């Protein structure tokens, strides 16, 4: 026998499918919705429906968009000669917030992982190579995560476009601003030394 009324049980079940939401959290959120104002719940339901109905990948860069092409790809003021390759669409938001980059993007859909058997065919690397050939790209900035899989992806991309004469760069890595040198690990500190700059 169910503990709560069927619609409440259903809501708990659906919520517990979400990442990082266990049964207890799902129950707490469900009761928050039950107790809350109706327009808040309807707003949430409408937002969920809208995102599933209207959002799709940009046909050029695979960022999320409502149109055929995303806002960044359509913006003629951006530097079309530079493509920044990122793992996921949410990485674009982080880079945009820096205000340092004015080129285009390419969402790879993850990172290459020889350790887990994730192969280049599982990512959108072939599509990136096609873009470079077709759009006269001069530079690819590989902004994958600075870890084993992200760096394997960067190495693979560099290898794939080697003969196309395009410049491939990766983001610098080193010490985080505001951190203490004492706590830096050997690999990070080693890279910070290798990439030191003149003042």
């Amino acid at each position: 026998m169910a503990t709560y009324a069927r619609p409440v049980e259903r809501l708990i079940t659906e919520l517990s499918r979400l990442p990082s939401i266990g049964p207890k959290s799902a129950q707490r959120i469900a009761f928050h919705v039950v107790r809350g104002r109706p327009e808040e719940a309807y707003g949430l339901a409408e937002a969920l429906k809208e995102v599933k109905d209207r959002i799709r990948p940009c046909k050029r860069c695979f960022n999320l968009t409502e149109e055929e092409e995303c806002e960044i790809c359509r913006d003629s003021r951006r530097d079309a000669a530079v493509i920044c390759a990122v793992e996921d669409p949410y990485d674009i938001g982080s880079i945009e917030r820096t205000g340092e980059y004015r080129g285009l993007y390419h969402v790879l859909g993850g990172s290459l992982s020889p350790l887990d058997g994730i192969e280049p065919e599982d990512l959108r690397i072939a599509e990136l190579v096609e873009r470079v050939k077709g759009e006269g790209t001069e530079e690819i900035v590989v902004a994958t995560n600075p870890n084993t899989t992200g760096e394997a992806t960067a190495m693979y991309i560099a290898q794939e476009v080697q003969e196309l004469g395009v410049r491939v760069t990766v983001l610098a890595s080193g010490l985080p601003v505001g951190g203490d040198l004492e706590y830096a690990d050997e690999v990070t500190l080693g890279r910070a030394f290798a990439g030191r700059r003149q003042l």
Partner: protein
Amino acid sequence: MALYKSKGIVLRSIRYGEADRILDLYTHDYGMVSAIAKGIRRTRSRFGARLEPLSCVDVMAYSGRSLDTVTQAEVLRSFHGVREHLGRLEAAGSMVRNVRALSGGDEGDRRVFNLLYRSLETLEERGAGFKSVEAAFGLKLATLAGYAPELEACMSCGASLEGTEGLLYYAPVLGGILCADCRAETAEAFPLPPGTLFGLRSLVSGPVKQAVLEERLEESARRVVGAHILAHAPAATSLEPRPRVRPA
């Protein structure tokens, strides 16, 4: 909750929750351990790059019901030379998948830890012949796990393979070689190019550091090792590729 300390090699690292990672480590004292490293994905995490896959670390953790929790980690050897080269990384990837597949129980085996450490060290120091190291590692690992391939006599008729003329076949399910007369014993048997048997024997008997096969034999040695482990490993499903799910 018991706090413990051991040397360990990070085999796998999976994103978990907001900023955590779940790690599979092969430890010197306790064998395979799964542990969570909380907050590791934050740029200001105290773990930094210490727990990247393939790193050999001195790890301190406390045991939990299903997952242990890492509290401290110090790098003993980062093996970043392996991570920063695609050929080496591919060979290491196959090696760590084989360790995961052949480590079914909770028992630790220091020989497995030492073999993995030495093999990663060899990969890092080498400029070529990565597949030979990978094949030698796989054969030695299978032997330590009790699944040594039979390379001396035909698995079906028992005839000695010494001085055998003609093609030989490898039968993964039977765990060894079939002579040309017995090749029909199993449909999975595949032919070995001339010289492969000698190459496999040299990989089994020699140290990993000296594992060198001719380039033309490396691929068939890898195929033998891969098929052999897949046929015998208790956790062989972990060797199969992940379902291809592409995020939007």
